[in-house]
């Protein structure tokens, strides 16, 4: 068994999957979490194990308080400790603000924001006792700059910043850090759905002249998850290929 353990919410695919695989390569026991697709999560575990990594798969809808508690409890029971929590689980549903229904608004806020609260609260009890922890929350450049068609998503992703800054201040003297990673346009199911015109327009705004990869995000998360990153607290790191400088 490895010395340290990491939980990555929503890690059956996309950015979460890349983070889970990277942390396993870095020597963490990794708790892979999925909400719906057990099969995909099992594949991530197989891929992890094939590369010599260790982990388990836990099904939990982390936007539900009891499920989030169950996820953290299972990790603690299995490995005896949790050193890293990556709040990655989230959903998106583009819609002009005028067309967002009450239900859609609440669903986006609930799934993207409540889940980070439930998981962080559950894991902090444990981290506080150990006087060590790394909480890394995946927001988005949209949470910093806003984006047409994503008012609800941006509101939730923005909320994660204030949430994280507060955790950084409350638990900083307990050896626990809380930071945000804000990806720009990353190759994923979400960006694959864009039209060629939309893609071309987006690429114009990216200095790197390419979309990011899930691995680009995972590398930064892995650094923040390491013991060496202990003096970085309450920060937002944009991983956007230089969008911000254009």
């Amino acid at each position, binding site marked *: 068994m490895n010395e340290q353990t990491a939980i990555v919410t929503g890690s059956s695919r996309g950015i979460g999957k890349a983070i889970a695989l990277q942390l396993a390569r870095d020597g963490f026991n990794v708790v892979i979490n999925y909400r719906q697709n057990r099969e995909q999560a099992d594949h991530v575990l197989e891929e992890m194990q094939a590369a010599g990594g260790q982990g388990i798969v836990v099904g939990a809808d982390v936007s539900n308080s009891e499920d989030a508690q169950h996820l953290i409890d299972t990790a603690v029971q299995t490995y005896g400790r949790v050193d890293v929590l990556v709040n990655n689980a989230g959903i998106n549903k583009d819609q002009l603000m005028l067309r967002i229904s009450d239900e859609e608004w609440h669903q986006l806020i609930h799934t993207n924001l409540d889940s980070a609260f439930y998981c962080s609260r559950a894991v902090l*009890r444990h981290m*506080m*006792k150990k006087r060590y922890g790394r909480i890394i929350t995946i927001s988005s450049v949209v949470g910093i700059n806003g984006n047409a068609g994503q008012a609800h998503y941006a509101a939730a992703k923005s909320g994660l910043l204030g949430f994280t800054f507060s955790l950084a201040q*409350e*638990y900083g*003297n*307990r050896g626990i850090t809380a930071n945000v990673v804000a990806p720009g346009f990353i190759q994923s199911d979400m960006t694959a759905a864009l039209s060629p015109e939309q893609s071309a327009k987006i690429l114009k705004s990216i200095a790197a002249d390419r979309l990011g990869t899930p691995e680009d995000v995972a590398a930064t998360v892995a650094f923040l998850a390491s013991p060496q990153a202990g003096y970085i607290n309450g920060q937002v790191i944009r991983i956007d290929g230089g969008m911000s400088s254009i």
Partner: protein
Amino acid sequence: MSVFEDVRKIIIEIKDLPEESITLESRFEEDLEADSLDVVEMLMSLEELYDIQIPEEATEGMKTVREVVEYISALLGQDA
């Protein structure tokens, strides 16, 4: 073990203080140099130990070890 002994043991775990420095009269902030997070940590440990829930309103008046011990003893129906 009495409630006081349990409370004292938990405070020692959190603050790394000598046993004799913790009395019923000890004030968390002034005498034990415990911040609000230390107090919350102590209360959570006590909730776990006794399988109880201490409501937020009840914690506001808890400034000394005695106040915590008396509150929990009353909740458990024991003498402090």
